[in-house]
């Protein structure tokens, strides 16, 4: 088949045709029948689901796509006369709506891609002055398609199990989704604007001057979260560094033995460790109190986990047990990178060990591990396990019954309790989730700018 004369106008015509209907330009002007048919098929499917209403089997522009998006806005209508099973379920509607919204976004990007593809193909054809052969096209497709097909599964997974859930919990903050009055399918959930933010963050209730218990609990939990993140990070770090310095001292002979022992806490799943500690520290039956009483060191059992202040201290102490090995490994490997000449020179100058540590080891190690320290701080803000498995957020305080927030609850474990325990306060949990999200953004930016790809200008 001899190639006919190529009309350079196809560079303009093909994209316009493809903009009118996906794949049209590819089929009519570019002889890309398979690709064009594929695009056209996508558009046909989309149009079908917009126009066709499967419930009434009619073409009335009430298709599932339209209905889902409308549902996302209305969150269903009251249908008291229907049995519970057939009523509108606001939460399902919200999630379906979000999924459809994401599908629409993907569809629109495919549409744009289709137009650009038509333009690029046309340019290539005009440049080469002939239509590519079947084999050429196949090869070209293979090259281009590999990254797209390779990335497709994770896009789908991330969309369904990460993006939709995150968007959903963001949206719930603006609804009244909470028990007992707004739990589907018995009741509907409605948009309430910023009401939940007012409930959580206003110091007083309504117009009155009565103090807001939610705000009180929030202030306490937020403050404790910061205190916890700071101290848990710092204590682990310096305990770890202390031991890595001691173990490098030549006056300690069996340092290898000590190292192996000290690494053990790092190798045991923290959840198990925390449960064991919870029982060791049990006020009446725990072996620690029993031992101390037996030895005559204390007369009364120490309330490790039942006194609010003590519980916070205990939490930080137990966290040192779990976390110091990691910091020890970290600082040790950082110290070995310090050139030994520095120390030799310092020794010749008559500097003692402490002085050497203060002016060589500490600044260099700190400088090198600071980024990791910052990320550890971010991780500790969200350290659900440490709190939940040791104290379950307890002990209870005066406002715990109404707000569910205990003395050692972090924002993250409070979110969990509000979501999981009755009465479920999904809306307030979402307000807190948004807050956690905002707090995490600087850390995300920080870790992002530290990546090699960013530094090399790749991203």
């Amino acid at each position, binding site marked *: 088949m001899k190639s006919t004369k190529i009309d350079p106008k196809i560079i303009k015509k093909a994209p316009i045709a493809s903009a009118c209907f996906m794949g049209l330009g590819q089929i009519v002007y570019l002889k890309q029948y398979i690709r064009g048919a594929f695009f056209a098929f996508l558009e046909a499917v989309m149009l079908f689901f917009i126009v066709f209403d499967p419930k009434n089997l009619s073409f009335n522009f009430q298709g599932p796509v339209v209905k889902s998006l409308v549902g996302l806005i209305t969150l269903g209508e009251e249908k008291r006369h229907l049995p519970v099973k057939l009523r509108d379920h606001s939460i399902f509607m919200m999630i379906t709506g979000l999924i459809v919204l994401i599908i629409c976004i993907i569809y629109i990007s495919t549409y744009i891609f289709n137009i650009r593809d038509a333009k690029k193909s046309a340019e290539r054809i005009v440049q080469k002055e002939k239509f590519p052969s079947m084999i050429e096209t196949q090869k070209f497709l293979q090259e281009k398609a590999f990254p797209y097909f*390779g990335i497709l599964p994770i896009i789908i997974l991330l969309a369904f*199990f990460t993006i939709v859930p995150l968007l959903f919990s963001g949206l719930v903050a603006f609804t009244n989704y909470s028990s007992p009055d707004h739990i589907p399918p018995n009741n509907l959930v409605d948009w309430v604007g910023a009401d939940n933010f007012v409930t959580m963050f206003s110091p007083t209730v309504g117009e009155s001057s009565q103090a807001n218990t939610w705000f009180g609990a929030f202030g306490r939990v937020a403050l404790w979260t910061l205190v916890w993140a700071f101290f848990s990070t710092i204590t682990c770090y310096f305990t770890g560094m202390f031991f890595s310095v001691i173990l490098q001292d030549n006056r300690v002979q069996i340092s290898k033995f000590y190292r192996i022992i000290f690494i053990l806490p790092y190798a045991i799943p923290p959840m198990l460790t925390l449960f064991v500690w919870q029982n060791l520290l049990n006020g009446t039956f725990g072996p620690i109190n029993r031992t101390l009483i037996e030895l005559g060191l204390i007369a009364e059992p120490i309330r490790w986990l039942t006194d609010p202040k003590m519980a916070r201290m205990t939490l930080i102490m137990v966290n040192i047990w779990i976390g110091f090995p990691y910091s020890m490994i970290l600082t040790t490997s950082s110290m070995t990178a310090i050139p030994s000449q520095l120390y030799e020179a310092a020794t010749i100058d008559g500097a003692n060990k402490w002085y050497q540590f203060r002016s060589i080891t500490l600044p260099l190690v700190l400088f090198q591990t600071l980024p990791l320290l910052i990320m550890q701080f971010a991780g500790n803000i969200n350290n659900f396990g440490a709190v939940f498995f040791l104290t379950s957020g307890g002990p209870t305080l005066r406002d715990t019954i109404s707000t569910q927030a205990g003395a050692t609850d972090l924002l993250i474990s409070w979110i969990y309790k509000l979501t999981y325990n009755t009465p479920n306060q999904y809306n307030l949990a979402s307000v807190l989730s948004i807050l956690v999200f905002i707090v995490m953004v600087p850390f995300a930016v920080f870790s992002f700018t530290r990546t090699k790809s960013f530094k090399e200008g790749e991203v």
Partner: protein
Amino acid sequence: MSKINKNTTALSQSTIIKVFLNIILLITVFIVLYPIAFTIGAAFTRSNSLASTSIVPWPKEPSLYQFQRLLTPSDQIVSGTTNVRGTNYITWYKNTLKIAIMNTILTVILCTTTGYIFSRFKFGLKKPLMASMIVLQLFPSFIGMIATYVILWRINGLDTHWGLVLVYATGSIPYNSWLMKGYFDSMPRSIEEAARVDGASPLATYLRIIVPSARPQIVFLTLVSFTGPWMDFIFPRLVLRSDAKKTLAVGLFELINGRANDNFTMFAAGALLVAIPFAIIFIAGQKNMLLSLAGDGLKE
């Protein structure tokens, strides 16, 4: 001052420091080992309650009864007793193993491929995708657990292991893809370019050349994603409803939570059976990190 005098004070001072350092280290060894020793001691105790455990981490009369109780299926009576039922521990163990293996396979396939594509190819939306993945990895995925629950419900994934694995694998994609990308970035491109010049397709190049040569990092990823699900608690508790589907973390939690008085020693036995293999795998996975720690011993 005579020279000898000075030397003896210096010597005795250094001895004091030496003794002092060793005392600190020995106290720490005690603190580190005490909970571990206590757990081991409790696991071999005949009686069930926390209160009955000996304060010295050594059981008064060593017994394997707790292991027997743990390993007897829940529909049978523990031998040697008349009315004590066993637990589903073996089932939980199998479930956890299954989930860990499924998660490993899925994660390795997805993240290796994604990391490779991120490292070598240019395509539309690459930059926003990579950037958003960095942001995503910082958020605890259980913030969105209600929606995850509903989505799994809608696709019949509740109370199934594959549903849980999908959640796990997705949660680990952002971090692990970046991890693999970093590794591929450091790999020389010459061999694959040669293969491509010889006419191999990208897929064939990837499967025959890239995957085999990335083996060390893939082994690491395998270990990480295998150990990940063992002690996760929130999602199994959310997704898996029936006792026969439970994982170890949930099973052990329900064994001990608020019931230390009748189950603590059995929990200790169960914890030992998890912690020992886990610690071995974990240390194997972190070998490079730990080796660098052990190898530097004498460096000053």
